[in-house]
């Protein structure tokens, strides 16, 4: 494998090294971490629900399920059986910009895992019974995560309203009618198109010999041919002109509110300032909105915020659970007032430093476990196109200035740019 780059990080001598297989373009990021006799092995594919089209939503996620089934040489269930026999854990996740497969394993099982992962990347077999069985599982997963879950339901509605052209409009799990309609041929075509070494990055963190690992990756993956990955059409989401709203009656005890504003992409220069802005608003118990909504007015029982981590501009989100008998409109008004204040006057240094400290601590916390390191590396490489930006996250957050934060509130979080969705009790109790 050809060395591409390397970046040391932390104080314990850790170093991330990126390599590439000449034969097919497969990339690998290796971090030797001997803190426990384990490894985290992840396969990140540059395909997610953004690569679907209307009427075929949910196929990236359904296909992720099918990847645990049968290959030309492994019977159904054998993949999981072999891993579980040696004490390895395996799972996967699909999101708007990516799909990744994760294995946590005792270090001595690394070669077995590589062989199994390379096998299903190249030799998966998809038949009707497997598609039918997984379709049922996914429909049940959708009921669990969306239809019977008020937060999942509101998140789905928020993105549906906030995006009109971009694929972020539809949910990664897919619309129920689309999940029902996916065919075996659709699944095979999806596999042939996107599951190829030149569309993947392996991430390996743990107690292993680097040279040997690189050799074994080459041995297992080197003969897999590359594919012609379709050039993705760049869909431009038109600017939002005016607030968008939706409200639904649900079996909830009190109002639930979710507000989203389109932010920026993960690799954008404004991203760190947006993270700080959301942290100031809703990060922790001393944040502006927690104090105002939960402590001072007791309008809400919880308030949470999230900055977007998408390739294209995703949504800055605020989630509020109202206290019984209080209305979402009260919380909306207070949120608007706090944002207006922050857009008018820059925060003081102490409040900014608090948000920066919290973000830095959270960043390091995510990097503690081996699979946390692997996930962060894979996410930055696949979403932002450069894993090394992970190592300057804390630095970028710390460099954010008060005026930048003020500008973020003014530019991104204006009332006319928000999308508001709300669930109210079908039956109100006192």
């Amino acid at each position, binding site marked *: 494998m050809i060395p591409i780059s390397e970046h040391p990080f932390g*104080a314990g001598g850790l170093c991330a090294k990126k390599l590439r297989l000449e034969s097919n373009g497969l990339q690998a990021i290796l971090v030797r971490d001997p803190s426990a006799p384990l490894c985290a092995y992840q396969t990140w594919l540059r395909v997610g629900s953004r690569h679907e089209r209307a009427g075929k939503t949910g196929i990236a996620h359904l296909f992720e399920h099918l990847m645990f089934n049968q290959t030309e040489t492994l019977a159904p269930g054998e993949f999981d059986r072999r891993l579980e026999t040696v004490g390895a854990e395996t799972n996967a996740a699909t999101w708007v910009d990516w799909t990744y497969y994760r294995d946590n394993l005792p270090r001595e099982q690394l070669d077995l895992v590589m062989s199994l992962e390379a096998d299903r990347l190249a030799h998966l077999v998809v038949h009707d019974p497997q598609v039918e069985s997984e379709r049922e599982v996914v429909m049940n997963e959708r009921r669990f995560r969306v239809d019977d879950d008020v937060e999942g339901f509101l998140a789905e509605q928020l993105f549906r309203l906030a995006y009109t052209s971009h694929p972020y409009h539809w949910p990664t799990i897919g619309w129920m009618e689309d999940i029902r309609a996916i065919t075996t041929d659709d699944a095979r075509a999806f596999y042939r198109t996107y599951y190829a070494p030149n569309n993947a990055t392996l991430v390996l963190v743990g107690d292993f010999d680097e040279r040997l690992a690189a050799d074994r990756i080459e041995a297992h993956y080197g003969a897999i041919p590359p594919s012609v990955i379709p050039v993705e059409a760049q869909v431009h989401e038109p600017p939002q002109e005016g607030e968008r709203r939706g409200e639904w009656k649900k*079996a909830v005890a009190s109002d639930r509110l979710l507000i989203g504003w389109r932010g920026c992409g993960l690799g954008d220069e404004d991203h760190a300032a947006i993270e700080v802005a959301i942290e100031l608003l809703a990060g922790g118990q001393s944040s502006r909105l927690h104090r105002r909504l939960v402590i001072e007015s007791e309008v809400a029982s919880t308030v949470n915020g999230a900055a977007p981590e998408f390739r294209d501009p995703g949504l800055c989100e605020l989630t509020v659970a109202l206290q019984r008998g209080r209305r979402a409109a009260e919380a909306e008004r207070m949120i608007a007032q706090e944002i207006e204040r922050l857009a008018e006057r820059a925060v003081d240094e102490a409040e900014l430093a608090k948000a920066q400290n919290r973000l830095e601590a959270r960043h390091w916390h995510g990097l503690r476990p081996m699979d946390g390191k692997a996930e962060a590396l894979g996410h930055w490489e696949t979403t932002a196109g450069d894993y090394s930006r992970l190592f300057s996250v804390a630095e970028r957050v710390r460099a954010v200035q008060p005026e930048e934060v003020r500008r973020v509130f003014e530019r991104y979080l204006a009332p006319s740019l928000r999308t508001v969705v709300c669930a109210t009790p079908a039956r109100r109790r006192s």
Partner: protein
Amino acid sequence: MIGPAGSLVLGEENHDLPLARVTVTLRTGATSDPEGQEGLAAFASELCRRGAAGRGREALDAAFEGLGASFDVVVDHDAITFDVEGLSRNLDQAVALLADVLLRPDFPVAEADVLRRESHAALDELRDDDASLARRFHARHLFPAHPYGRPRSGTDASIDRLTAEGARRFFERAFAGGDLLFGFAGDLAPDRFQALLARHFGALRSGGAVHEVPPDPLFPSGLRLQIVDKPERTQSQILLGHPAPRWSDPDYLPLLVAAHAFGGTFTARLMTEIRVKRGLSYGASARMGLGRGAKAITVTVFPSLAQTPETLALVLDLWRAWVQDGVSDDEVAFAKTNLASAFGFQIATPEDRLDLAASVAVCGLPGDYRERFVPAVLAVEPAEVRAAMARRLHEKDLAITIVSTAKKLRPLLRKLSFDALEVTPHDTF
């Protein structure tokens, strides 16, 4: 290591990242809540961070968060853990704040009023989440009249009875050196941690070393179904429970292996039959609880409402076959190997190792549990597993809880028979 006032000190040093965690674990939890005052331990633990050493709630929150530190309180039935994690460069100040909260709490009356209202709101939020709702009702159904059946967060009625004075009395009684475990993990050296404890926790009261083991629960016999009625469900959350022995019982480890073979992995019986072959539920698992006292074997599935009868019937068939016929030698070998190999993930990070050490101390497990677990599991023989199953498991004794919409579900369940069936509105407990 011994800490202030006879407390225990546990530590896992690691300097890879500039992050450190400090925990203070009190070996008294929600099992100590008096009847009618369910939620007292949680209420008292939360209230102590709402005012301490003359500083109010907002000042304390701002002080912790200004250091980049998170401060969480976790209350379970056997223990309460105060958990501070943050940038190691600010750790001295964070530990000083933690000592203020734990040694000099003010228990302000006004904050107690606020906290009661917040506790009611938290119950409302819990009721919006079907899986949490199912676990809450199931614990009571499984362990009626036992401390493990009491809700840690209280009930609407019990919350109204909790006061600042009650919280103070609870804390004064419970918070003493003999009941405490101090822990650290991450970018911190043991001698520096001991120095911090000596400086900030020197005033800790000694005494309080009695950690009572809860009595074994009395488990009603029969197949008892409880439907927790919630409108507009498209899916059912189903939990089935059966009593398990204490960890110290010779049958505990063989049954752990048996339960793992039944539903502990993706290729175990439950997942294979329910998800892989039939697609009836996204998840299907069986887990055996570990605590200071005896807990339960719990099976979890969540099918669509329409497929609930088919799924429940299948789970009951699988349960009966498992209890009656036991497990095969191959299943035992597989479960043992998987449990032993996967144990490494429980001790992968310094934080994981600290958590395990604290659990060992709270549950009263042997001090060398971490070293003994793998060889002990590997030594379990198939005959021991089957004998333990025969002694401990009863196919007709199951507590079943289903969160679903009763009006739609009950007609569908006509073909199944139960020894007892009750329907409870979801917002009444």
